[in-house]
């Protein structure tokens, strides 16, 4: 990615091979500071208030549904025999999956030296946190008696009972809480230098106080940067297997059982890929409007969208591969229950979830990203992202409800019908998620200023012709 060492002689006539700068229009450090801090420092625009009012209202109604469900009981939901898990776990898996893109961008791409991540990692990480918050609601409340949820914690107690550490649901508790905690630490660590920037620009006392407190007195000293970079690298290093493990553990909830369509060994990587797939779609869903509204096109460039689209294509293709393997092995296994379950997925009562959600939204729509003009066309990208957002929810729904609604005994067969509480709890979490994200872009820098500055050419002391680093000349420039 080191564009400085690319020799101009070779690339001048072959434009596509030149590394496109990550920040366009030769912006300098102070422009970046102004533009990104400006989003926080300016008065909240009218559209912000309008949107926030709407989302906060939805969120409030969602919270009301939560309260109603907790005080009345899980009977307010539509799940019953044989569909004992339905919208609750669907939403849980959906939201936790959304979160994965943030950690992928912030940790995995960091380790892969993908510097383009710096433009989007902050908001993606924030999105992760909010998505995990929304996710954590559902396993919390689906137990019915929420006030007993502390049974999950391994605390010495008067029952002499300990959690069953061999249960995948217990793994979930550890995985999700660890994921949230580590994501918060990672996010906050990354925020510290930017909070210091805001602190130094603050004009009002209250801002000076608050940003000052949370900036922990950051001075940008190199002795501090030294440890800070190491800590950031290590946090990225441990977040990477963590993000793989979280959705793997979520998949274990299903795959350790013996239910047809749930018990299949490819679930862990398949769920992880699906999570990143859905998560990136959500990142783009949020970033495309944000970059237009806040005029951040120089920082979040078409190149960024192009690369994210490629990741959607990659993960979408892996998801397609996993679907294929599931169908193939279901047939190959010769197990009639397994075969029936997959036949039922395609032609059963929930057929359209498969045709629309899985086939069209998840398998086919991302294939558009094979073509460059699709990746470069904002409207196509947005369309595919919306398809994927919906498709991934449908996928989880069809895995869960589709797996349960046809029991081994035909006499137990049934259907699932959501109640208004089901529906509004989910819509409510959409409201909570969006509200939190709107608050985030109002009060915190949505792009990691200190990290974007690194990718500018002048940030590298070795760029340009200095005494001990003369410009590099390419060989092989003579053409025959």
């Amino acid at each position: 990615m080191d564009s400085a060492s690319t020799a101009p002689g070779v690339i001048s006539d072959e434009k596509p091979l030149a590394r496109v700068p990550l920040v366009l229009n030769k912006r300098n450090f102070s422009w970046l500071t102004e533009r990104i801090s400006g989003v926080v420092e300016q008065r909240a625009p009218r559209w912000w208030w309008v949107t926030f009012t709407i989302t906060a209202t939805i969120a409030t109604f969602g919270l009301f549904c939560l309260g109603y469900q907790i005080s009345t009981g899980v009977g307010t939901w539509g799940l019953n025999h044989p569909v004992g898990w339905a919208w609750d776990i669907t939403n849980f898996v959906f939201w936790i999956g959304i979160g994965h893109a943030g950690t992928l961008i912030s940790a995995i791409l960091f380790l892969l030296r993908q510097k383009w991540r710096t433009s989007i990692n902050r908001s993606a990480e924030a999105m992760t946190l909010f998505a995990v918050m929304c996710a954590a609601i559902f396993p919390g409340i689906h137990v019915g008696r929420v006030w007993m949820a502390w049974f999950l914690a391994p605390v010495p107690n008067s029952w002499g009972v300990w959690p069953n550490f061999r249960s995948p649901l217990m793994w979930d508790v550890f995985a999700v809480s660890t994921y949230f905690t580590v994501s918060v630490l990672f996010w906050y660590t990354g925020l510290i230098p930017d909070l210091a920037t805001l602190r130094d620009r603050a004009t009002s006392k209250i801002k000076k106080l608050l940003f000052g407190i949370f900036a922990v007195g950051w001075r940008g000293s190199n002795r501090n940067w030294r440890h800070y970079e190491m800590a950031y690298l290590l946090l990225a290093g441990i977040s990477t297997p963590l993000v793989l493990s979280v959705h793997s553990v979520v998949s274990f909830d299903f795959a350790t059982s013996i239910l047809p369509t749930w018990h299949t060994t490819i679930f862990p990587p398949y769920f992880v890929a699906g999570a990143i797939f859905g998560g990136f779609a959500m990142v783009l869903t949020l970033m495309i409007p944000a970059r237009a509204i806040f005029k951040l096109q120089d920082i979040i460039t078409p190149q960024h969208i192009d690369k994210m689209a490629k990741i959607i294509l990659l993960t979408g293709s892996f998801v397609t591969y996993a679907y294929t393997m599931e169908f193939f092995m279901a047939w190959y296994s010769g197990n009639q229950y397994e075969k029936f379950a997959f036949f039922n997925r395609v032609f059963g009562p929930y057929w359209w979830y498969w045709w629309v959600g899985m086939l069209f939204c998840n398998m086919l729509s991302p294939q558009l990203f094979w073509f460059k003009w699709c990746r470069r066309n904002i409207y196509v990208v947005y369309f595919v992202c919306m398809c994927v957002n919906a498709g991934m929810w449908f996928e989880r729904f069809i895995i869960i409800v589709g797996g349960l609604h046809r029991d081994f005994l035909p006499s137990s067969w049934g259907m699932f019908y959501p109640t208004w509480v089901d529906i509004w709890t989910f819509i409510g979490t959409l409201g909570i998620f969006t509200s939190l994200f709107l608050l985030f872009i109002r009060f915190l820098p949505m792009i990691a200023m200190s990290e974007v500055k690194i990718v500018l050419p002048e940030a590298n002391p070795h760029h340009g012709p200095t005494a001990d680093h003369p410009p590099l000349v390419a060989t092989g420039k003579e053409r025959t």
Partner: protein
Amino acid sequence: MANFFPRWTNWLPLKVAICGVFIVCGLTAATWYYGTPKYTRVGYQPIQPVPFPHDIHVSQLGMDCRYCHSFVDVAAHSNLPNTQTCMNCHTQVQKDNPKLEPVRASWKTGKPIEWVQVHRTPDYVFYNHSAHVNRGISCFSCHGEINHMPVVYHAKPHSMAWCLECHRHPENFLRPDDQVFNLDWKPDDVKPAEFVAKYGQPQNVSEDFSKKKKLTQTEIGQTLKERWNIKPPINCQGCHR
């Protein structure tokens, strides 16, 4: 830009951290102790309509538990005595004692006395008195020294962990079946020769128990456990059916 924060704030994190450690430790300990009540209802001693003194009836007069709690060894539920049981004696004895006025009133009206229940097992726990009493678990094990109580109180915790103590290691509590209702029984009371003659001794013990001067609770319990083939359930559905 001058320093916005005064200099003393530099020590604040350390102070907060130290206080935080104490507060967190304190809160954890408090939650552990009070939030998970190991001593559930221990010491609970409600005022009863009639202050029935177990110590007088059992220790002084030598009544058997089963005289009043007459189904304890045949039914899952141990019954409280009805008024008629009381009046078997109290038509003769203490018939003018003012403390017994509620009993006499009940006897006249036929309306039962409203005893306050002291030992209460939740409805999701299936507890069978006869199963325990007939297999060498004394009343004492769960109700304490009830034969010395002027007024009954809750002596043992009755938490699930407490139940499991015995279900995992019944040998620490078992006693000869004829001593179940003898609440003052001690392992030392057992005569080894007689005991061995009646119950035998554990299989893989080389020592001859009948030659010993005294038997310990574990030795007695182990013998009885094997003799009666006692395997208390420790799975969930043993009690939560």
